[in-house]
């Protein structure tokens, strides 16, 4: 019987990580599901759904040679693999401002309380080391409606974070 694992992998960015990891998986007769792979602060990160008949130990062994060779950190978690059930986002929120402690916590707390269910969050630090700025894009479901989110963000801007720039746009999906 086959089952799903979430493969989480971190390592110093170098050429060919994806090719070597996925080739090892392919040769071990594993199938791949959804994946997110990103370079974050000079590290290469991978989150990859893997489906196979191997035990978790056997899967780890299969990957060991490439993990050792490329000096990667690997973690495997048994998961329930849900394919073909995408949830579509209803709203997209962008935030940017001078980087200081607590932006993400404040913004996401306000949004969570206003009913946002986050499907995708991507953030980055730009600018210079002396004057960094923080930029974040969030997509999600407005479980209490978009108006509630708008009001909550407005409240945040007027009371706590006047310098933050926050933009919200409903995502209209046209099916045709």
């Amino acid at each position, binding site marked *: 019987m086959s089952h799903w694992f979430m493969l989480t992998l971190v390592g110093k960015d170098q050429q060919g990580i994806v090719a070597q990891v996925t080739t090892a998986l392919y040769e071990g007769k594993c199938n791949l599901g959804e994946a997110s792979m990103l370079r974050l602060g000079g590290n290469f990160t991978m989150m990859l759904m893997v489906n196979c008949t191997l035990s978790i130990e056997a899967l780890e062994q299969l990957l060991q040679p490439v993990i050792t060779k490329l000096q990667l950190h690997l973690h495997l978690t048994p998961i329930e693999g849900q394919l*073909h*059930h*995408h949830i*579509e986002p209803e709203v*997209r929120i*962008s935030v940017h401002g001078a980087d200081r402690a607590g932006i993400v916590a404040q913004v996401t707390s306000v949004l969570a309380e206003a009913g946002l269910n986050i499907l*995708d969050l*991507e953030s980055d630090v730009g600018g210079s080391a002396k004057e960094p700025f923080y930029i974040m*894009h969030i*997509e999600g479901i407005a479980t209490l409606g978009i108006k509630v989110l*708008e009001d909550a*963000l*407005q409240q945040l*801007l007027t009371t706590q974070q006047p310098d933050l*720039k*926050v*933009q*919200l*746009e409903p*995502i*209209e*999906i*046209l*099916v*045709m």
Partner: protein
Amino acid sequence: MAILNILTYPDVRLKNIAAPVTEFDDRLRIIIADLEETMRAGHGSVGIAAPQVGIFEQIVIIDVSAKPKIKQHGRLVLINPEITKWEGFKVGREGCMSVPDYTGNVIRAHSIQLVAQDEYGEQHEYEMDDYEARVVQHEVDHLDGMLFIDRLVSRRHDLFKRKVYK
């Protein structure tokens, strides 16, 4: 009338190029009626092109009238449609009855001019903006054997124009 079977990607027939319609007869009008029923049976679909049901002729139906407060022409039958002018661009999220369980961002012209015939062969000219223009561009792609997944831009790429607070 009948709800027709929708071809879904990766069915290679979706790459077929649709031929121009030459006979504006009862057969055409039956296809149109079936297409419309199929479109309305799809979840919130605002357009359909004949190749999506395996009929490789230049027949399109659009109807964005369910979207409130936008400039639009209501239900339109577009036979042998030809876009004659493109202006501006906009990123928007598209889905397709032929591409289940996937949506993506696509850049389309914001405004278009279009020449098309109706179900009786009469020629009309249209100017369209925004959602309606997007739907027509998506459907005309179907006639050319193209899907929106051939034109994706990154979901993570920030090209959206948003409402700005404060």
